[in-house]
């Protein structure tokens, strides 16, 4: 009984940690299909695309755990404060299933954890597997996989109320869940409802708020021992204001590492410009058929309709965002000492510094924007400032069936099929004209080259010179279709001291685009359907664990996989036309892993190493290119990368109530060859090829080295934990554009450039963070009441970076085109502002806490 309670307390203590939400939850929402932080331009770059504009930064992190591996079991919550990425892998490298059906979004391969936020009790029951671990639900990716069990009969029976308070992205959380258990007549029900809240006065990051309701219902009917049918439905309608990354200069001027430029005052009230609204109702029907005692068929059908929109302040004149680079003191004076001093203006520098001391200057002045638009109304002109909403909706219909056969002791065979179809809808709407009357559906970057009313400048020739009012679609409007078929199988077998397994998969993917606007620059290939692209892919992997006796074991695994490209990297400029990128082909992944484990009464140890090699990879980005006064769409292909590292996890039991957990990893994740790139600007139809000198660039947004030492103490229903973590080798997402041969030629004013001319990758700050947790369980009215207080970053280290990215702008302006030249532009003047010294960064919260109380009855 005592052990049960201890486990319960431990579980309760661990839960808030594993679901903790910090700054990035609130602010990261970047691009997948590249969103538009339009012309701040720098905000809307490749880097943010990698962070996953559609979701959260959380979407970029793989939540993995394993009961058989101390390292995997612990890193999920121990390093959540820094948004540690398992093996520096993107979320899309891990497969997520629910009752056996895959739920990753095929467009970008990612699973959005935000869709199951606030329903913790419903999603606690899941099976996680490491990349080379046998399982009966998938051929898992190189980041492992998870299968959530959402069957009502598998949920805990009884009531549970949870109340939480925190100073993070949300301030209050309340959850209630109820499970009926399986009744005698074969019915089971489970439901949970949760709410998370923070307003602009209470949220940890200024100018953000959080407003999220979650509900989950699961109803199951069991017929005898053979059949069961379960219907689960859930949704987490959420509205939240997000923050943005910031430069060191902005943090310094605002005296706040969490400086957030995405809000301002309107009529004395705080208003956020970047608000994400999502509603993604999901339905899952599962039929379990126990054919025999050792034979089972699981079939699931999944339906999800996701509505997601993210707003953004945009403009057709001058960038009104407070962190626009021309508003900084360093725009007026080269503070780095590497300029020629000709443009330095110290008075303006000082004047700018003084302006930044005023909060009204360093935040958006909505009143001014409204005033400008109302002035323009008087002369019948278009609004020049507005808030637009980028929509990324999708309708996902998936079907899976898995057959398991334990045909003899220690021998299991599973085979499954997955049919996935997703229609993703991407369009932009006018969310708020900020007092303006209308706006025309015109590509303002083309005005000048073409008349404003010319067909070439129209976003939609079919509607002519169209006035846009609030609620109208404009800019772009298209669907991307993805249809996948996957057949997979795995076989595992115990033989003597060995446990062996082998798994394989084969699949097909087809995709196409369907445009609903006839873009003026691409009148022949933007409206209607594109051609259909087909890919055949598959993989094979195998592994073995050898039990050496006395608790010692070694394990090894190898794999090879062909991965069809994701549709979000497949189109050259999907916002404008139907064209696929050039040289689109399957990515190849070679993977290997070796591990050693000790498990006995007082020690559990896992030591492992891994090596992944990928080639023919693809990536895609868009950003506002200051030099060409247009958006640039870039497709990187033929990417070659290596990922390797060592991982160590130790749990040492010192006494029956005290144990020590030590974790460590040192890894590498980098490009090993320079990459071909094709790019085009949104004001031309010409596709250019170039080479990107990105050899040696590391994966960003995660420390590549981390260690942790924790003490756990349990006695008399008390639980105490103190953990110290140290992070290092944190890189920021690099800017490919700054490493193109053509860019370097202009930068150094020479025709012969190489990878040695490419700038060093920007880095973030690592550092030490101390966390603690204390919990206690009580009996109230014969039912358990648990209280847990989690204290994070006790030493209040605020300068530790959790991610960020380089800006894709040059330190110089360019002047006229050079005819018949590869460089096209030549350098004009050096700027005072040094973009390469001003990467944008996210920082950890300072000291933060979460108090969690729950009561079961």
């Amino acid at each position, binding site marked *: 009984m005592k052990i049960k309670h201890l486990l319960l307390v431990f579980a309760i203590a661990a839960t808030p940690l594993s679901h903790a939400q910090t700054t990035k939850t609130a602010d990261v929402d970047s691009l997948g299909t590249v969103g538009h932080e339009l012309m701040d331009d720098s905000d809307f770059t490749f880097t943010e695309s990698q962070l996953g504009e559609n979701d959260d930064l959380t979407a970029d992190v793989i939540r993995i755990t394993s009961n058989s591996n101390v390292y995997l079991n612990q890193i999920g919550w121990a390093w959540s404060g820094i948004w540690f990425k398992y093996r520096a892998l993107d979320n899309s490298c891990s497969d997520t299933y629910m009752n056996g059906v895959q739920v990753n979004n095929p467009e970008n391969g990612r699973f959005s954890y935000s869709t199951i936020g606030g329903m913790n009790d419903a999603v606690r029951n899941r099976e996680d597997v490491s990349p080379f671990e046998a399982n009966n639900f998938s051929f898992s990716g190189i980041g492992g996989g998870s299968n959530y069990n959402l069957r009502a009969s598998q949920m805990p029976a009884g009531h549970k109320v949870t109340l939480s308070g925190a100073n993070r992205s949300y301030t209050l959380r309340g959850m209630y869940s109820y499970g009926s258990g399986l009744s005698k007549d074969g019915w089971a029900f489970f439901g949970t409802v949760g*709410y998370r809240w923070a307003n602009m006065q209470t949220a940890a990051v200024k100018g953000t708020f959080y407003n999220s309701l979650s509900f989950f219902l699961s109803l199951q009917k069991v017929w005898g021992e053979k059949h069961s049918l379960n219907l689960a439905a859930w949704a987490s309608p959420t509205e939240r*204001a997000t923050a943005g990354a910031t430069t060191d200069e902005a943090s310094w001027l605002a005296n706040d590492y969490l400086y957030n430029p995405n809000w301002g005052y309107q009529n004395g009230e705080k208003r956020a410009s970047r608000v994400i609204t999502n509603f993604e109702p999901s339905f899952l029907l599962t039929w379990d058929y126990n054919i025999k005692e050792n034979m089972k068929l699981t079939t699931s059908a999944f339906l999800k309709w996701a509505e997601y929109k993210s707003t953004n302040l945009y403009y057709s004149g001058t960038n009104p965002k407070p962190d626009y680079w021309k508003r900084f003191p360093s725009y007026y004076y080269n503070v780095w000492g590497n300029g020629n001093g000709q443009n330095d203006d110290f008075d303006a520098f000082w004047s700018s510094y003084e302006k930044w001391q005023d909060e009204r200057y360093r935040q958006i002045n909505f009143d001014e924007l409204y005033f400008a638009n109302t002035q*323009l109304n008087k002369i019948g002109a278009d609004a020049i400032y507005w808030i637009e909403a980028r929509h990324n909706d999708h309708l996902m219909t998936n079907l899976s069936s898995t057959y398991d056969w334990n045909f003899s002791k220690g021998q299991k065979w599973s085979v499954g099929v997955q049919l996935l179809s997703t229609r993703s809808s991407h369009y932009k709407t006018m969310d708020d004209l900020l007092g303006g009357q209308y706006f025309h559906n015109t590509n303002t970057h083309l005005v000048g080259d073409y008349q404003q009313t010319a067909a070439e400048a129209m976003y939609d020739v079919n509607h002519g010179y169209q006035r846009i009012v609030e609620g109208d679609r404009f800019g772009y409007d298209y669907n991307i279709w993805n249809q996948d078929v996957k057949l997979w199988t795995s076989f595992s077998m115990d033989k003597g001291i060995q446990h062996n397994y082998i798994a394989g998969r084969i699949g097909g993917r087809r995709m196409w685009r369907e445009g609903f606007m006839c873009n003026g620059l691409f009148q022949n290939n933007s409206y209607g359907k594109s051609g259909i692209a087909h890919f055949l892919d598959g993989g094979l992997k195998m592994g073995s664990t050898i039990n050496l006796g006395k608790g010692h074991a070694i394990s090894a695994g190898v794999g090879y996989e062909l991965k069809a490209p994701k549709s979000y990297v497949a189109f050259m400029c999907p916002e404008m036309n139907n064209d696929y990128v050039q040289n689109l082909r399957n990515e190849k992944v070679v993977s290997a892993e070796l591990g050693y484990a000790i498990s006995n009464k007082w020690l559990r140890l896992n030591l492992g190493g891994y090596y992944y090699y990928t080639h023919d990879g693809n990536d895609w980005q868009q950003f506002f290119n200051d030099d060409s006064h247009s958006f640039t769409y870039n497709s990187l292909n033929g990417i070659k990368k290596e990922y390797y590292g060592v991982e160590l996890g130790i749990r040492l039991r010192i006494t029956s109530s005290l144990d020590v957990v030590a974790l460590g990893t040192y890894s590498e994740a980098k490009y090993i060859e320079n990459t071909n790139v094709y790019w085009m600007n949104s004001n031309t139809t010409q596709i250019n090829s170039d080479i990107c000198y990105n050899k040696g660039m590391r994966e960003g947004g995660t420390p590549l080295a981390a260690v942790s030492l924790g003490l756990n103490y349990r006695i008399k229903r008390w639980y105490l934990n103190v953990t110290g973590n140290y992070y290092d080798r944190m890189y920021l997402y690099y800017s490919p554009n700054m490493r193109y041969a053509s860019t370097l030629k202009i930068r150094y004013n020479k025709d012969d450039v190489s990878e040695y001319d490419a700038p060093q990758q920007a880095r973030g700050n690592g550092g030490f963070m101390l966390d603690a947790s204390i919990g206690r369980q009580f009996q109230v009215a014969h039912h358990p009441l648990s209280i847990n207080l989690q204290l994070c970053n006790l030493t209040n280290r605020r300068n530790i970076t959790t991610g960020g990215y380089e800006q894709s702008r040059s330190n110089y302006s360019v002047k006229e085109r050079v005819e018949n030249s590869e460089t096209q532009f030549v350098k004009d003047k050096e700027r005072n502002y040094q973009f390469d010294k001003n990467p944008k960064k996210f920082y950890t919260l300072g000291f933060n806490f979460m108090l969690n109380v729950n009561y079961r009855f």
Partner: protein
Amino acid sequence: MKTKSFIIALLVSAFALTSCMDKDWETPAYMTVLPSYGNNYLVAGTPTTIAELQSKYASTISALASKQITDDLWLRCVVTGNDMGSNIYKQISVQDETGGIIIGINGSDQGAFMPVGQKLLIRLQGLYIGGYGEQAQIGSLYNGSIGRMEVSEWVQHVRLIMDGMAEAVAFGTMKVDTIEFDASKTMAQQAGRVVHLSGVTISGGGTQIIAPDDGTVDLISNCVNRTISGGNAGDKCVLRTSPYADFKGIALPNGPVELYGIATYFKGTWQILARTQSDLAWVK
């Protein structure tokens, strides 16, 4: 029963908790009387006119010098040109019934805050006036000459007068009509005003666009100058257009046309600055 209770609790929670935080924001009502631009605390003192101002500082202007205005003078005027067409750069032109003048402001999108027709009350004391190529200009001191003032300085010296304000009455029936261009007029008589030219021919007509940025035409201080001749253009008149102008790609006409623009004067040459495409009357 418990299941029913749960569902009821869920629905109640759903309705009770899901109100939007990001409300529907309305245009602040005060904007019609209290602009979010400029200095709403300014109250006019001794009035002056553009003609009086240019006369008072005529020697400074003609000497291409600059001088700070120290008298407590106030100017009531109307905006006639700005950066709306991306041709006039960091300047606005204003007129009253006596003349026109250029005001240099180191800021973009000024046309959105001060569109054509906007009434302004300007406190001149503390600002500089001078001659830039003999063109009268109000601004700030820059390397000893007249230059653009920072927006932060400008907004302390200007009050936007909206219809309905008591101050609007003082403008009375001020007319800022377009005048026919006359090359024989002096800078003080014509510069800074909206002018109309008719029956004029523009060099490059029939073959080129107004302001190409591909190197085919030499830029003069970052702009393309097209000679205007015939009609009422006189013998030293150019159409001056930035390669960043929204109408830079308009084809030049091959024949006599009419056009409008702000007349500026630079070292003996009249430079006509079209404000937007609508000033180019031949463009349909």
